[in-house]
C-alpha cells in the first residue's frame, strides 16, 4: 500500500514538473523571432518566473498581480548598436479577465490607443498590450528614431502568436451609459487593486468578486459585484456602517435603500444596492445619480438575467 502511495506521489510530482516545463516552453515561444528584431540582439537570456517567484522579479507591486491571478512571466532584454535597450515582459495570467484587469490597472490617461491585440496603448517610451490571457509591456530605455516602430513590430509578433482571443469582462458593460465618454476604466478583483484606484477607507468595501470603475467628465462610477444577493446585502450594510463612522467622510445621509456621504472636498458619494451589485457615483448627489443608477440597473438585468 505504501509503495502504491509513494509511486502515485512520484507520478503527481513528475506530472506537475512536466506541466510546468511545458508551460515554460510555451511562454518562451511567444518571444519575438530574430527576423523581427532587426539590429536588436538579446542582451541577457530570457527569464521566466512562476507564481510567488514573482516577488523575485517585481520590486514592489507583485501582490496585485497575484491577487488578479498570476501564472508566469517571461522577460527578456535586447540591445542595439547605439547601446539603447528594450525590456520585454509577457505576463501570462490565469484567465482572460485577470489579464484585462492588470492591463487596465497599468493604463494611464497619457496612453495613445493603438490597433493591436484586444486593447493597447502607446506611451512616451513604452507600449502596453492586452490579448487573451496575456499582458505585454515593452519598454524602451531612451527615445530613438525608429525605436517605437521596433516596439510595435515586437509586440505585433507576440500578439500574432497568442492564440486565445479575449472578451472584455461582462461587468464593464454595466457602465455603458448613454452619452458617457468613459476614461480610466479599471477592472478589479480584490482589495489591493481597489487600493490602487481609490481608498474608500480601510475595510469599508471588501470581499467583492469583481468590480469596475470609470471616469466621465467630473464624475466617477464604481460597480461592485458579489457572489449573490445575500452576500451583497451583508457587505453593503458593513460598508454603510463603516463609511458612516469614518473620519474621512462627513454628511452621512441614509436615503431609501442607499446612502450618501461627502469627502473633505465636498464631493458627494452616492451608494445604491441592486441585486448582487452595489453602485457608487462620485460627483453626483442622490437625485442626479438616479438616472445613472437606472441605466446601470437596466444593463445589469440585460447582462445578468
Amino acid at each position, binding site marked *: 500500500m505504501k509503495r502504491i502511495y509513494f509511486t502515485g506521489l512520484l507520478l503527481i510530482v513528475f506530472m506537475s514538473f512536466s506541466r510546468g516545463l511545458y508551460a515554460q516552453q510555451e511562454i518562451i515561444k511567444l518571444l519575438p523571432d530574430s527576423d523581427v528584431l532587426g539590429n536588436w540582439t538579446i542582451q541577457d537570456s530570457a527569464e521566466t518566473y512562476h507564481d510567488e517567484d514573482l*516577488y523575485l522579479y517585481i520590486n514592489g507591486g507583485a501582490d496585485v498581480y*497575484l491577487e488578479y491571478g498570476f501564472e508566469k512571466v517571461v522577460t527578456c532584454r535586447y540591445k542595439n548598436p547605439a547601446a539603447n535597450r528594450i525590456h520585454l515582459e509577457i505576463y501570462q495570467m490565469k484567465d482572460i479577465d485577470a489579464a484585462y484587469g492588470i492591463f487596465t490597472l497599468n493604463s494611464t490617461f497619457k496612453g495613445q490607443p493603438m490597433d493591436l491585440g484586444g486593447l493597447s496603448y502607446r506611451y512616451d517610451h513604452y507600449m502596453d498590450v492586452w490579448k487573451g490571457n496575456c499582458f505585454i509591456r515593452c519598454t524602451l530605455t531612451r527615445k530613438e528614431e525608429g525605436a517605437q516602430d521596433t516596439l510595435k513590430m515586437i509586440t505585433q509578433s507576440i500578439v500574432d502568436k497568442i492564440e486565445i482571443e479575449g472578451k472584455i469582462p461582462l461587468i464593464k458593460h454595466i457602465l455603458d451609459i448613454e452619452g458617457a465618454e468613459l476614461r480610466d476604466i479599471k477592472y478589479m478583483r480584490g482589495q489591493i487593486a481597489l487600493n*490602487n484606484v481609490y481608498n474608500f477607507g480601510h475595510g469599508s468595501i471588501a470581499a467583492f468578486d469583481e468590480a469596475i470603475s470609470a471616469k466621465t467628465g467630473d464624475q466617477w462610477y464604481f460597480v461592485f459585484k458579489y457572489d449573490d444577493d445575500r452576500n451583497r446585502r451583508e457587505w453593503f450594510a458593513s460598508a454603510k456602517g463603516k463609511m458612516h463612522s469614518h473620519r474621512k467622510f462627513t454628511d452621512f445621509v441614509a436615503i431609501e435603500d442607499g446612502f450618501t456621504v461627502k469627502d473633505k472636498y465636498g464631493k458627494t458619494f452616492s451608494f445604491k444596492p441592486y441585486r448582487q451589485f452595489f453602485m457608487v457615483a462620485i460627483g453626483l448627489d442622490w437625485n442626479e445619480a438616479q438616472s445613472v443608477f437606472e441605466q446601470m440597473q437596466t444593463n445589469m438585468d440585460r447582462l445578468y438575467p
Partner: protein
Amino acid sequence: MQFNAEAMERKISRRKFITKTSKYTAAMAGLASMPGMAVSSIFEEDADIGIVNGTDYYSNTMRAIELIGGINKYVPQGSTVGLLINSDFEVEGAYVNPDIALATIQLINDAGADSITCIQKVKPEYWQRSAHFESHKKILDTLMQVETNTFPSEFNDTDFIKVKQVKGWKSLKETEVVKKWLECDVFINIAISKHHATTLMTGALKNIMGVSTRKANVNFHLGSGERNNPIYLAQCIVDQYMLKKTGLCIIDSTTFITDNGPSGPGTLKTLNKIVAGTDIVAIDALTSEYLDYLPEEITTTLKAHESGLGDMDYSKLNIVEINA
C-alpha cells in the same frame, strides 16, 4: 499607546496648523535666502519637524535640516553614517528626487563624517538624473555601498546578518538585514511619500524593507500563512524597524505617485515639500495626509505608534513650515 484620532483632530485642524506655521512662513520669506543667515537662528528652539516648500529641492533639503537644528546636531564629526535612499525605481514620483539625496550627502560630508555608506545599492544612473551630478562627482566617489544589497538581494555572510527572536517583536520571528545598517553610528532614512497598493503608502517606515534580503521581505508578505495580510506585513516592518533607530529622516513630498504604487506609472501629485525630522512615525502620519489618507489608515504608522516607536499625533510636535 492608544491613538485618539478625534482628539488629534480637535487639536490640529488644518486651519490651526497653517496658523501655527504661517508666522514662520512670513518670517522666512525675507530671511531664508539671506547669505550667512542660519535658518534656525531666527527661532527660539529647533523644530521637531521642518517642512520647506519650493522648487529648489537641493537648497530646500538643506533648509529643512537647518530648521530642525542643522546637520551637526545629528551627525557628529568622525561618525559613520548609513544612508538608505528609496532610489531603485524608474518612474518619476516613485523614487526620491536625487537632488534631495545629494544635498543630504553634501551636508553629511561637510559635518565631517568619517564615512557614508549606502545601505542599499544606488545605481549610477540615479545620480545622473540630477542637475547637480557633475558638481558632486567627487563626493559620490567617496561613497561606500553595500553592493550586494540590490534587488533581489540574497543573504551572504559578509554583508548580512540573521537576527532572530528579538524581545518586543510581535510578528517577526527572523530577518536578514545589512550589517552596516546595524553598525553605523547614524542612520539616515531618505524616503518618498508615495502610494503603495498593499500598505497604501510607502514612507519612512516602509522604506525599512530596503535593509533586508528579498527572502526576508517575501516572508513579510507571505509569512502569516495568508497572502498579503496587511496587518502582518505592517507589524513585520515595525518589528524590523525596532532594530535600529533613525537618526535623521528626510521625506521627499515634492512630486509623487498617488496610485499604482510603488513602482508606477501613476497619477502624479506635486506639492514641492521637503520634510525633515527624527520621529518617523510622526513624519509618516503627517505626510500620509499629503496623499489624502488619515494617519490611522496607514497600518505601518498605527502599528509603530502602538509599539511606542514614535507618536502619530504629530500635533504634539513643534512643526515649522516655511516657503523658500
